[in-house]
């Protein structure tokens, strides 16, 4: 009785012996699983899925109409040793493109144009503002958007940070407790 069992175990052992070194090929499952997300991210970065992951709608800022979005719904990302950042995306209406000089965003009301916060980068159709999550920021704070015109005029709107980015509000809440 023991003889066939022994030869069987030897057989499975040699099968294992033959194939165990090919197992690292299973790592190639990773790119296959990641592929749909990769193409999703790519479409996002090319702007094919809209302005941002979470649309914040149209807003009237003084004479100008803009569209705002939260670029991604992830928690704030770490930017070097400096701080954590939350990125928003913004697009200007066709008629306000030549009129708007710059857009700024910050948490909390700015005292003047010099402290209006982070400046936007990009084209008028799609620009990004990465807002630093300051140490003093609270979860119930407002986020302020400031638009500066080429003629020197300044217009602002604000909204609760929790509306603009629930993930940032949660992040701050967790940090402050």
């Amino acid at each position, binding site marked *: 009785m023991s003889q066939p069992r022994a030869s069987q175990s030897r057989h499975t052992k040699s099968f294992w012996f033959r194939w165990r070194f*090919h197992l690292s*090929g299973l790592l190639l499952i990773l790119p296959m699983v990641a592929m749909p997300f*990769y193409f999703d991210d790519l479409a996002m970065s090319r702007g094919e899925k809209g302005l941002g992951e979470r649309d914040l709608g149209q807003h009237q800022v003084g004479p100008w109409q803009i569209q705002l979005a939260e670029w991604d719904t992830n928690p704030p990302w770490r930017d070097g040793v400096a701080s954590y950042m939350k990125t928003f995306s913004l697009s200007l209406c066709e008629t306000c493109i*030549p009129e708007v000089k710059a857009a700024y965003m910050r948490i909390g009301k700015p005292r003047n144009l010099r402290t209006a916060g982070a400046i936007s980068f990009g084209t008028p*159709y799609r620009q990004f503002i990465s807002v630093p999550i300051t140490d003093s920021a609270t979860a119930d704070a407002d986020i302020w958007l400031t638009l500066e*015109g080429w*003629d020197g005029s300044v217009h602002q709107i604000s909204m609760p940070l929790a509306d603009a980015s629930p993930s940032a509000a949660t992040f701050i809440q967790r940090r402050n407790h």
Partner: protein
Amino acid sequence: MPTSTSTKSMTEKPRANRAKIWFLVHSWMAMPIWAFVFFICLTGTIATVSQEIVWLADPASRANPPAQAGNLLSFDEIVAVVNEGHPEAIIQSISRPVKSQFALTARISYPDTTTRTLYINPYTGVIQGESSRFDFRQFVRGLHGWLLMPWTNGYSWGWYLVSITAVPMLISLITGLVVYKRFWRGFLSPRLRFNVNARVFWGDFHRLAGIWSIPFIAIISITSIWFLLQGILQDNQVSFSTAGPPIYVDRADVPQLSSNSQTPPFIRLDEATAAVETAFPDFQASFVSMPGNAYAHYRIGGRSVSYPLLFESVSVNPYNAKIEQTRRISDLSWLEIITGSMRPLHTGDFVGLSLKLVYFFFGILLTLMVFSGMMIWSKRTFRDTAAVLRERKIKQQPNKQMDSQIPAYALKEGESA
């Protein structure tokens, strides 16, 4: 197999033992992960010529000169061409290879928030098409470099998985050379036997390709170890950049316009590039990024003439053409020059097609070395396993030595198996 069983002296024994250990280390470095490493080498090899593959596949990406090829388009002429063909679009950046078989590219932004890349003939200004939504080059790089794994929080896990294989690769190279006694002889008398059996062929191939690839494997594995370190440093917020914080155009330089509805009063692109080329006569502008806002600069870049591995860039004030920041080779620290050279050294993309083809060739060799290593091991292992099993059957005794797995060339000096 003519194995001379010389039992000369006692001194030979420890040397043989050491060789045996080196050989086992060599075998174990790649064998358990060979399939993964094979995939990385293969995709990396394709990635070196991915731009050329796109060139072959997509005629729009080529820069065919017309019969009477005049001067290359200036940056302003490119802007005019895009504005005419796509009046609603806004240019973000232009890349105009100085001397190339590739069409120049313009990255443009549309009102529907999408961005696209246009291929423009650098001689005629014809917009030949746009890069397809499936960017083969980007895809192969992503597959090779980080297995397409996401970059949501710091470096991708795929990046680490790939770059860490450089460590066993470097150890394989070193141990391979230690095990292969007098490997330099292989240069003088190369041997590739097709007519014995597969095991002998792959063995010859593995050694021959190995010695000819010594510099290539060293470059690839050392640069990849840097990629591993780069990820670790960045993820731990360690930076030795001398670039400093981003600079902005002084508010006093940005004009206040009395009435709205005017386009930004930027200087022309050719004016900006001329300012740079006047200040630095050895600077060849090959790409331009438009200011990202009213307080940002034209960023004008080009491959360094003195050190072609790296690109240099200059930031030009878009209102008065003043050069306000330079990032040229002379502005970089030694550490930045060395670490910055790692990527071009890894990809071979700093001379042109000729070097890419050299990298492609050695890439294929390296891919086949991973494969041949596996073939040698499994053929030898199968043979030895069969022998052990046979032995056991007869003697009912366990395998006593690993000697049978060690090839003759690793054990004794001189002519090998």
